[in-house]
């Protein structure tokens, strides 16, 4: 690879989360009975006409703005023709030479320095239906046909599979923040194609590119690109030519396979969609939508650092998902103190572990911010329970929805910090472990830990370890 560099451009398709389809009033709800969400318009019945979903249009502008694009003063739709049974009209209403917005960028961070990925265009189009192959026949579900899709195309500014992954993760993050799509690749609400070529490092000229399709996960994109880079290098090294073609990622075989070559490339015969007018976008409208854009991840992480004193690392982790960031912010606010570090530690540590175990996001763990805050107070400040017990209580809280104090009381988990009570137990341990006591007094620090452990054992873990240490040290001095 050293000699070569990859030149990658990505084309992401994002399902916009509107209640109704792009050009008709049918519901977009996922997972309904096949062909239960259709009408003459999305079925492309003769005589039917499209009417643009204003919300989808607004979402498209929003995404364009969030990606630093210029929103066009006027935009139009075009028909893209190809024959496929899941495409009811045998053309797709898309946008060709006047996309809603263009010329933006997204900065990604792999190292310390940001890398700018230029966004070529963002346009709105309709999705196709879905073919279901059964034995010797094929069935079509048109529920998906007409769902608004946003196509986001980058310039070929991406140089590695890792950058591609990072770009997609950031893009998903931003779109989630805008609340216009759930970007779930498994559900198909985010799909991605890639254009890739290689060239000798330092070379200005672009190599012959291939187009990669059928990558159904972020990892798929990364793996397919890595495979394709190796394949192309292999071809060049062995003196073969790279053929311009479309290749499919085979997720089972972990390789790309040829689908069609340039000679077989389709002529989409684009022309302006005569059933829809030219759409003018007023500057005031753009300004209004701009105002509606909520804080994006980068701004949020900067603010978290400033307002809550978080480290850059902690802030980045917490803003990586919008609902998590919102949850974290509520927890910070519930915490009675200026230094929010303990809360961040708990969120990134124990709360994340609990969430991971349940395979959910931290915002979905069933713990109200006030409950979490109380738990952290009980552990970190008042030391009513130990850290270890605290984690167990957290799990119990997530499972039952009960508050920390309730669980501690019910299960009698409160630490014994009362010196008189502890003295009694410590007395017994000193008596029973004369050897360790002697070792400690001879200067073996480890023995102290052993003695503390013995006290903890006797109190079934409820002794306040700090207090035990204090008393032991005092007694054995």
């Amino acid at each position, binding site marked *: 690879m050293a000699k070569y560099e990859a030149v990658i451009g990505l084309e992401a398709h994002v399902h916009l989360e509107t209640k109704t389809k792009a050009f008709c009033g049918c519901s977009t709800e996922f997972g309904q009975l096949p062909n239960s969400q259709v009408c003459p318009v999305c*079925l492309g019945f003769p*005589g*039917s*006409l499209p009417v643009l979903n204003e919300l989808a249009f607004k979402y498209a502008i929003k995404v364009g703005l969030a990606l630093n694009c210029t929103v066009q003063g006027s935009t139009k739709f075009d028909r893209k023709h190809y*024959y496929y*049974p899941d495409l*009811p009209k*045998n053309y797709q209403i898309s946008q060709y030479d006047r996309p809603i917005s263009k010329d933006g960028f997204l900065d990604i961070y792999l190292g310390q320095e940001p890398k700018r990925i230029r966004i070529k265009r963002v346009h709105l189009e309709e999705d196709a239906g879905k073919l279901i192959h059964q034995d010797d026949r094929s069935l079509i579900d048109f529920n998906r046909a007409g769902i608004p899709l946003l196509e986001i195309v980058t310039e070929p500014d991406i140089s590695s599979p890792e950058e591609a992954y990072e770009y997609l993760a950031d893009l998903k993050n931003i779109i989630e923040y805008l609340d216009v799509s759930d970007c779930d690749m498994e559900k198909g609400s985010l799909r991605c194609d890639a254009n890739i070529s290689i060239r000798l490092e330092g070379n200005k000229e672009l190599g012959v590119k291939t187009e990669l399709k059928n990558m159904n996960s972020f990892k798929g994109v990364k793996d397919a690109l890595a495979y394709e880079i190796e394949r192309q290098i292999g071809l060049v090294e062995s003196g073969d030519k790279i053929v311009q073609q479309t290749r499919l990622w085979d997720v089972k075989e972990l390789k790309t396979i040829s689908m069609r070559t340039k000679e077989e490339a389709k002529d989409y*015969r684009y022309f302006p969609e005569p*059933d829809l007018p030219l759409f003018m976008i007023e500057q005031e409208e753009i300004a209004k939508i701009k105002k509606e854009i909520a804080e994006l991840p980068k701004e949020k992480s900067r603010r978290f650092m400033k307002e809550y004193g978080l480290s850059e690392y902690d802030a980045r982790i917490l803003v990586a998902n919008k609902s998590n960031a919102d949850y974290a912010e509520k927890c910070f606010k519930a915490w009675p103190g200026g230094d929010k570090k303990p809360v961040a530690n708990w969120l990134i540590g124990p709360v994340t572990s609990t969430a991971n175990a349940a395979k959910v996001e931290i915002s979905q763990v069933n713990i109200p911010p006030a409950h979490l805050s109380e738990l952290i107070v009980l552990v970190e400040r008042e030391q009513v329970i130990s850290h270890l017990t605290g984690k167990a209580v957290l799990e119990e809280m997530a499972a039952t929805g009960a508050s920390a104090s309730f669980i501690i009381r019910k299960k009698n988990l409160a630490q014994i910090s009362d010196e008189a009570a502890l003295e009694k137990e410590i007395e017994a341990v000193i008596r029973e472990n004369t050897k360790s006591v002697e070792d400690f007094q001879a200067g073996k620090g480890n023995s102290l830990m052993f003695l503390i452990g013995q006290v903890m054992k006797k109190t079934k873990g409820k002794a306040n370890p700090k207090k035990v240490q204090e008393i032991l040290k005092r007694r054995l001095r």
Partner: protein
Amino acid sequence: MDLNTLTGLNLIEKLNKKEISARDILESLEKSIQSKDSKIKAYVRSQALHLPEQLADYSKTTLKGIPIAIKDNICTEGFNTECCSKILVGFRPPYDATVIRKLKDAGAFIFPYKTNMDEFAFGSSTENSCFGPTHNPRNPEYVPGGSSGGSAAAVSSDQAIWALGSDTGGSIRQPAAFCGVVGLKPTYGLVSRYGLIAFASSLDQIGPITKDVSDCALLLSIIAGRDNLDSTSVNPEGCDYSTSLEKNIEGMRIGIPKEYFIEGIDLKVKKAVLEAIEVLKKLGAKCREVSLPHTEYAVPVYYIIATAEASSNLARFDGVQYGLREKARDIIAMYKKTRDLGFGQEAKRRILLGTFALSHGYYDAYYLKATRVRNLIYQDFVNVFKDCDCIVTPTSPTAAFKIGEKIEDPLKMYLSDIFTISANLAGIPAISIPCGCTAQGLPIGLQILSKHFAEGDLLRLAYAYEQNTSWHKVRPKLEPS
């Protein structure tokens, strides 16, 4: 007097006076169809004619249950809508076109038989129908014009009180002229296209075909107006075209474009139109020669834009969801076989022309250039309408031609639309009204064009002419078969 020979407004009057019932009209039409249509073939008979035993109560409606004939490319829920194409045989739309809904709301009875047409409205003679040609009621050896030939012939032969047609390049006006009836193509966007099976989306308009101008104004008032289902429809100010008909035309400024009186125009047609202009002058209109310099490009521009859009609009007829499906070994073979058997000669010709015009490498030279010239044609009209209220021309260079005369020569056929196409390209309204007869007794049409949404002016002028002439009262004398 047979009820089927009356106009819609005459019938409304009789119905209001309770002299007759809607049922009487229906029966009179049924009788007329039984006696005449085997010869004229204005209607498509791909389904049985089931007239209801009991009609709804129409007493509180505008149209009182008067039947209306509908062209086979306008969707009618539950009735076959086949565009006279094999590829759509048996297609029953699950919905009504907006115009049908509006007509129903106004109390029209939608006649179950649809009217014949050129397949997908591709033609000027109604010979390109998979159900066979319609005959001109004035002389069955002649074509009724097209593509709305069935609607025009049905009205002309009193087999319909009135009808709807569609006009992409003259498909309402030219058959209206050939059959001696009134036909109006509204301003693009005045009437919803929702439910009109598209030929060329940027040119198509639905419009009325009637026995006189008053009926035309009434039907237009009912079907006009913004429809939320059609993004290209607009709401003009005031859609009542009936009330202003009687206003005089004194001082109305009329342009006579010199490009429309060129060589090749039938002398009898020219004479009839010039005579009509004299009538208008006598009524106080100010007529003068004007120029629409880009007229000669209208036909080539039209055949690029219209076929390009048609090739796209017809892509959906693939055998997958509805209509004809031929069995084949795989999906591509099924597409090919279905479309090969389903489309007629002219449809294939236009799909190929349009596909070519949109193809990679040809788009700029053909489609894009055509849209630019289209704009020049539009500008011609804008310029003329600075000093004119209406433009008057012949509807067609000739009267009806014989069945079979032009069918083998598409170019000759295309040129019969030479005077009607410009209105579609410019999006302006145009009407054809009867203004004379040839020696063979074939009707001649007068075309009046006006500014966007100035249907009021156009109808007023047409009405004034009609009130002072009697060409619209000439009816074919058909021997019962």
